[in-house]
């Protein structure tokens, strides 16, 4: 990692293409989010007869799948290019992945916008969307796989050229994240290719609903770790450099990524705790496995704050918290991710509640869950992504993050924090009171209980409006950084190891071992229950078009 490679213009163009889609998605998806909170306040009706569930589907798909996947793949390509390099051939396959994903996105987006796919983001068989929706999503996933194998190949080529050396930390992390993504997305790909597409085209009469849900959630939880790991990459290996410190521990960082790989996939049943068709013992086993994911997160928390303290003390800041006071609060590249880290404390704690075997029934499908992932994904992850964009975009475009843009970025981070605090707190409370998620405004015949929810929905609209202002500001900053900021050189910050750091154990790079354990855990957690689901399966479900407004 000592020798950073230079990013050539033609490579930068590839990485930036992913960023353009990311920020376009932010604007569109954010606007849908704003409209949702307004509609749900009960004070505003959607114009042009637009259906609430159409914008809900757009919001979920475009932010949960498109924004995240494009940002992650673009960022990871840049990390690979910077640490192990990219060849002409690899750049070409990189472009393939971009165009495949974009084609799929456009296809799915059009299908949703014309009202042919009001099935939200998790499909909900036996509701049947237009086949173009499923085919579009399949293309997004296939496109991402092209990126997966390009990244694998990049590290492989580097390893062959640098025999016996340990891989650059960030390249190692990218490969872990892509390995996880590939293994996990096999589930949703199987469901879409084998179940949904033939069924939506009319080649299969019925669909096994429980199996489709199980395959979806096999993918659906690791998906959130796929979003989180790039943020961890920045926390471990980039933030230390921004604050003027060194990597805390190369081995610890690798260890925690390996643990996340192993424990992120065999946990999907905790999304299905209140479903009737799965044996409770297997649900419990996956709850235990879910809790294991907390361990690498605790390791991450320790190592990041240890870096903060070590760096501060080395700079001579004394006292118990002197180092804390002197962190670079006025540097948005630090501040935005830092707020994200803080939001992860309540976010993670809420996650433990969600995953708990019986406690889940109190909050399952209430808007508490929405509050939870707006803390974790929409704050922790997204603010870290913004923190990355503040240096990555100017680095790629040959411009500078000026003091004025830095200041705007700080204002942006604060607006985001205020908006999200209001919105997410209101969602958590309303959820505890029983308010459902994924629902349009309704007074449910005016019971007293429902009255207690509506005030919180108004608070969500206020929070949502503030957040949208933050989104518009972010788009402005992005456009400035991409096209108008003064020419110059912006650093690609990668932290270095301490000179006297302990050598990293070789076993941490034994891919056969870690991927083998991961697969063994998945087989343990899923083989018997899936066999059960197939053995005890009810007659399949015929498709339903009319409930989602299809003729």
């Amino acid at each position, binding site marked *: 990692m000592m020798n950073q490679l230079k990013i050539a213009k033609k490579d930068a163009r590839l990485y930036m293409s992913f960023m353009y889609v990311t920020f376009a998605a932010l604007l569109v998806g954010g606007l849908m989010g704003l409209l949702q909170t307004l509609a749900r306040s009960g004070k505003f009706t959607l114009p042009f007869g637009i259906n609430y569930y159409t914008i809900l589907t757009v919001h979920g798909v475009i932010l949960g799948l498109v924004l995240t996947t494009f940002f992650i793949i673009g960022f990871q390509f840049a990390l690979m290019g910077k640490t192990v390099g990219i060849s002409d051939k690899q750049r070409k396959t990189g472009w393939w992945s971009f165009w495949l994903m974009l084609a799929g996105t456009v296809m799915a987006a059009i299908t949703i916008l014309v009202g042919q796919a009001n099935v939200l983001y998790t499909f*909900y068989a036996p509701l049947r969307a237009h086949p173009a929706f499923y085919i579009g999503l399949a293309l997004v996933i296939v496109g991402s796989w092209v990126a997966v194998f390009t990244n694998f190949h990049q590290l492989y080529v580097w390893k062959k050229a640098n025999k016996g050396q340990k891989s650059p930390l960030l390249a190692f992390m990218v490969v872990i994240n892509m390995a996880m993504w590939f293994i996990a997305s096999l589930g949703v790909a199987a469901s879409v290719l084998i179940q949904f597409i033939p069924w939506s085209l009319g080649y299969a009469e019925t669909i096994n609903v429980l199996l489709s849900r199980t395959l979806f959630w096999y993918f659906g939880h690791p998906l959130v770790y796929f979003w989180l790991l790039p943020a961890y990459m920045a926390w471990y290996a980039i933030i230390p450099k921004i604050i003027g410190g060194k990597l805390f521990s190369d081995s610890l960082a690798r260890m925690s990524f390996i643990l996340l790989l192993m424990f992120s996939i065999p946990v999907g049943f905790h999304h299905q705790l*209140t479903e*009737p068709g799965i044996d409770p013992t297997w649900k*419990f086993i996956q709850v235990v496995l879910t809790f294991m994911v*907390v361990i690498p997160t*605790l390791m991450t928390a*320790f190592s990041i704050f240890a870096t903060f303290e070590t760096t501060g003390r080395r700079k001579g800041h004394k006292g118990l918290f002197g180092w804390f006071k002197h962190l670079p609060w006025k540097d948005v590249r630090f501040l935005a991710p830092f707020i994200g880290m803080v939001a992860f404390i309540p976010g993670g704690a809420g996650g433990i509640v969600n995953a708990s075997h019986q406690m889940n*029934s109190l909050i399952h499908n209430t808007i508490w869950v929405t509050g939870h992932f707006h803390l974790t994904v929409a704050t922790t992850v997204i603010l870290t992504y913004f923190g990355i964009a503040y240096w990555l975009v100017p680095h790629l475009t040959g411009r500078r993050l000026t003091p004025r843009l830095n200041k705007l970025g700080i204002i942006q981070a604060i607006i985001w924090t205020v908006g999200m605090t209001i919105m997410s707190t209101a969602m958590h409370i309303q959820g505890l009171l029983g308010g459902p998620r994924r629902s349009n405004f309704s007074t449910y015949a005016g019971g007293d209980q429902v009255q207690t929810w509506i005030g919180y929905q108004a608070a969500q609209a206020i929070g949502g409006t503030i957040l949208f202002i933050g989104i518009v500001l972010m788009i402005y900053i992005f456009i400035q950084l991409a096209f108008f900021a003064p020419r110059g050189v912006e650093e690609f910050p990668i932290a270095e190891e301490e000179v006297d750091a302990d050598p990293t154990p070789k076993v941490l790079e034994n891919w056969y071992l870690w991927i083998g354990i991961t697969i063994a855990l998945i087989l343990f957690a899923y083989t018997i229950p899936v066999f059960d689901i197939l053995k005890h399966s009810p007659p399949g479900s015929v498709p339903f078009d009319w409930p989602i407004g299809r003729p």
Partner: protein
Amino acid sequence: MHLHKFEKIWLIFGMGSLALFLVIIGFAAFWKGTHPQSHIEIIDPENVEAHDSFKPENLGLREVAEGKYIVNIVASAFNYDFGTDADGKPVKKIRVPKGSTVLFQITTKDVVHGFQVAGTNVNMMVEPGHVSRLETEMKNVGEFTVVCNEYCGIGHHQMFATVEVYE
């Protein structure tokens, strides 16, 4: 791999808490029997009437013993069928006395639904081909709104009912 002393303490504390949480959850689940509902009972979604509990005449609230009730419900987009009252009108509200034990049994004729008695622990997924069942004691007096909390189509937010617990 070298671990810092403070990190060892931090991890032992963290993992210890997780272990404690899991022991509590496991104790409640396996000794007290408070598993989330899972009955693995299947049914033909196109012919739910074949099941005794979901014959039209058996839908709705029924007292089976002193203070013990069964409620049979068939969900469909976008309605909970609690049967009909004496005038032949669909029932939208059921009433039980405080402290009674109520067994909710529900299935769906078409798509996936949710069944949550807001403000209580009654919260189930209702999936085609399966019977969802949950027994609970109604300890608190009040009117509780039953909401469909799993997306079932564009009329999803109009799907509801009421459970009243009286003194």
